[in-house]
């Protein structure tokens, strides 16, 4: 669904962005057509893995079922999930993502270190849709 936004498994899981060969600007979601730096005449856009870790810029949750195109089973009661905006330590880019299941807004604080892990967005009979999740780093340390 979002081809080329992430890659790998387990500890090798990474978000993928692109970096301009002329001005070194990094983009996520990836830019493959044009560098968006207005001061750049445009370089080659090369795929780069992004930092695994960053710090919580802010967070919230979704107490009501989001409308389509979000996919959820209307037969099941709605279970809220946390959303975390994370500032990646090296690129200083803020990337929004869902928290791993079981982590709630009450478990989070601005500034907490988190890392990117693979996750399941939803599944149907034919397909498991994968995505990225943010997990507080201390959970594994």
């Amino acid at each position: 669904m979002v081809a080329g936004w992430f890659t790998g498994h387990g500890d090798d899981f990474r978000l993928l962005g692109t970096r301009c060969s002329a001005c070194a600007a990094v983009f996520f979601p990836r830019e493959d057509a044009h560098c968006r730096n207005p001061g750049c005449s445009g370089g080659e856009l090369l795929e780069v893995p992004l930092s695994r870790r960053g710090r919580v810029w802010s967070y919230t949750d979704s107490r009501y079922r989001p409308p389509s195109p979000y996919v959820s089973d209307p037969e099941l009661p709605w279970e809220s999930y946390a959303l975390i905006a994370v500032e990646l330590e090296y690129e200083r880019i803020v990337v929004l993502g869902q928290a791993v299941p079981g982590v709630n807004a009450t478990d989070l604080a601005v500034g907490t270190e988190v890392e990117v892990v693979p996750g399941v967005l939803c599944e149907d009979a034919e397909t498991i849709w994968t995505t990225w999740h943010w997990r507080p780093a201390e959970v594994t340390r």
Partner: protein
Amino acid sequence: MTADVAVLGAGMHPWGKWGRSFVEYGVAAARSALADAGVDWRQVGSIVGADTVRGGYPGYVAGATFAKALGWQGARVTSVYAACASGAQAVQSARAQILAGLADVVLVVGADAAPKGFFRPAGGGRPDDPDWLRFRVLGATNPTYFGLYARRRMAVHGDTLEDFAQVKVKNAAMGALNPNARYRKRVSAREVAAAPVVADPLRLLDICATSDGGAALVLSSMEFARRHGVDRPVRIRAVSTVTPRYPNTVLDLPDIATDAAPAGASTTETFRVSIARAAYEEAGIGPEDLSVAEVYDLSTALELQWYEDLALCGTGEGAKLLRDGATALGGHIPVNVSGGLASFGEAVPAQAIAQVCEITWQLRGEAGDRQVSGASVGITANQGLFGHGSAVIAVR
């Protein structure tokens, strides 16, 4: 600095859930604005419509739709879409036509019949649309972004849930005085605290509803206003419709990520700050000159952010400005005396126009029980999806 244009008339259709077509709301608002201006529709040389999606028709066709409903009379027509900033772009287009001498009198109209519940993107699988992607990949509704901004303020500036609630208390008290508002009941901090959480930390009463509504303005050249017998009209002195500057490092609707901040860069001016600054510069007016402001309170916490972005106070001082009563009726810079979106709800193409209507009535001294005494300079501030800035400064 550009030349002024006159606001000859302002009108609204009351906001609510009326279950009728946007055309009805827009035409009612337009007729009301024309009557207020004392201008016959056939004198209008140009009509500018802020667009909405017409049910069942894949088009954004507001300008001609309103012109047809009012009766075809050959006026020049423009339709503009800029999400929540559509109304400001309609005002901008009207002003540019007047200043360029293309039209003497322009009717600006915005109206909508909003869906119930969360706004959502158009249907189909459209992964090239960032608005579609944030719903599909993250389930990130508009309120979740408001929740992110609110939490960030709490962490960085020490704002509290009680501060947020007091914004609602203030705006509801002013909306109770406004016959065009949808919600006309005062609200207590206790009621805000008892409302269900929608997106942590924000509760239902911290977040604006979707609504039906319409708003319209009759704008003219200063020369036409004089000929028309209006010697001292409310004048529009600035319309800011700027875009962000790269790198845009504050997460904004509907984006999934920001631009990366260059190594070693200190914080740059945020988008919302630049919207206001452009308006001040164009008007040759500063925040200290303002009598009244209408800001885009999609959430209570976001109103506090606008205080700082409009330079009504320093960074991090928004909650203090509120607690001191400065932004209430009777304070030194009342904000959202109309009741704001908290009392109106969102009717997307109409709201930036409605803000200018309120400023017009305030500057004329016609705002009734919610009048800011001696108001002479007003600003509006608003922001549309995808980098559409919006602010208008009017003076009298």
